[in-house]
């Protein structure tokens, strides 16, 4: 019997094994953290997109492409959400992710509709790429002809993001002819064709979006847009009143209180959020401090 054999009793061997197990695991944790730090951000971007094309992926799915589409859509949602939280200005992977999703499941409507919103919205709320959004929607229409809501989304982007009123009117018109389309589409087509970017037309659009909203955040967004539009309209009216006061009195009003004795206003005007309007230094109506209205939405 060698000397090594004599020293290794079973209990000693057991204790050694437990010690090795525990210590190695403890050592692994900081090591992994170090590795993460070094490779870190690099890996996360690349991970998201390690399959080149949706068509190839579709073949690999062996019949489970619907599930893969759901997974890729969820990835797109999470990517978008993370970018929004970081207040990012570049959403590079959003387009490819949406393309793969819709390649896998050409009938996944939520990917087209929400995807288009994510793409079209101005930064930092979205990717600020209305052209890409239109491309996505066009592919959706090809795969799902007759689905009128996609036409509605096309029309919306032309109207609101691109201010291309003729094309917007055309989109609403074509969409109104699809089976099951709301009558509102016809009204919108006519309104856009007649009045372009008028506030009343925009309010019609956003009211419909509010009614159709499928979840709370969409409803809230539409409500904010409507409030801003209402404020804009009221401010336009107030500006007209201010102008006529100036014409009459020969000097600009200092505040809205000036207009009350002249009988122009009954009381101090308040904006839809309940905060009184003020007269800005340039003589135009403006929102009071603490107003909840967000006029930047109207850009």
């Amino acid at each position, binding site marked *: 019997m060698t000397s090594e054999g004599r020293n290794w009793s079973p209990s000693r061997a057991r204790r050694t094994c437990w010690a090795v197990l525990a210590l190695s695991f403890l050592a692994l944790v900081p090591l992994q953290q170090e590795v993460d730090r070094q490779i870190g951000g690099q890996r996360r971007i690349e991970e998201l997109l390690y399959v080149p094309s949706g068509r190839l992926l579709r073949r690999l799915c*062996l019949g489970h492409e*619907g599930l893969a*589409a*759901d997974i890729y859509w*969820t990835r797109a*949602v999470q990517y978008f959400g993370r970018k929004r939280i970081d207040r990012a200005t570049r959403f590079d992977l959003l387009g490819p992710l949406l393309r793969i999703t819709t390649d896998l499941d050409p009938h*996944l*409507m939520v990917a087209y509709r929400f995807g288009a919103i994510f793409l079209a919205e101005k930064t930092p709320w979205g990717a600020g790429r209305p052209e890409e959004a239109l491309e996505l929607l066009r592919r959706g229409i090809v795969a799902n002809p007759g689905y009128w809501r996609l036409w509605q989304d096309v029309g919306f982007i032309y109207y609101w993001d691109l201010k291309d009123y003729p094309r917007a009117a055309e989109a609403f018109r074509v969409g109104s002819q699809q089976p099951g389309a709301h009558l509102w589409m016809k009204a919108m087509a006519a309104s856009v064709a007649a009045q372009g970017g008028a506030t009343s037309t925009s309010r019609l659009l956003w009211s419909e979006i509010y009614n159709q909203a*499928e979840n709370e955040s969409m409803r809230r967004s539409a409500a904010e847009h409507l409030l801003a539009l209402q404020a804009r309209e009221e401010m336009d009216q107030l500006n007209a009143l201010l102008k006529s006061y100036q014409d009459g009195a020969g000097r600009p009003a200092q505040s809205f209180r000036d207009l009350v004795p002249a009988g122009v206003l009954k009381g101090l005007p308040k904006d839809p959020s309940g905060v009184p309007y003020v007269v800005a230094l340039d003589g135009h109506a403006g929102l009071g401090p603490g107003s909840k209205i967000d006029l930047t939405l109207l850009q």
Partner: protein
Amino acid sequence: MRRISTIAWHTFKESVRERVLYNLVVFALLLISAAILFGSISVGIEDVIIMNLGLSSISVFGLLMAIFIGIGLVWKEIDRRTIFSILAKPVHRHEFIIGKYLGLMVTLLINTAIMTAGFYLALAYEQRTLHWRDLVALQAVYFILLQLAMVVALALLFSCISTPILSAVFTLALYMIGNLLSDIRWFGQEAGSALAMNLTALIYYLLPNFGNFNVISQIAQGHPVPSYLLVSNSLYALLYVSILLAAAILIFEEREFR
């Protein structure tokens, strides 16, 4: 006939006592219930994800069960020499093969039914109710069962020839290729040479076309399968299973047991 059902019943009892089967079914049910949570981390896919994940789980786990048990169906009896005492009895060799096949199919039928019940429970929980149109998912389950019928026949055939590991590899390989047959034929047509075109056409008709049966994503979007497809796919599966079983019986009739 009586002997076939005896062997089938015996095979069923043996399969049911396989512990792996329970694990797979439980895992499938867990995955299906996870689909409910999945919807909450995404947007707008609460219903469709249960359909997709649920039906895909039933398909994948059914496939695993079919292969796992199918590859041992005949091989185990040969390896453990239990085949000696069976064939010494007044049992025709073809009765043995058919009985084994039916026994495993019954097992899969029951397991699929359990998973489908779990699926509908999850759907009912998510939607707060069940609609008549939700029954359309049964079409997908039916097609999954047709696929499994072919996979079991494949595994059984290989089980007569080779060891479990090789049988599993071959069966899985044929399942994957069978899903890609349309693409293979398309490649052959695009390739330009007559040889490629004919070769891929031959492969297309020879190998089992599992791609015919992939309807999960369309069912999830609420588009039912047209009835002519139901009929033609059933016929296809029946014919192909007959081919495989006939081949298995041919091989088994000539087989010697040393």
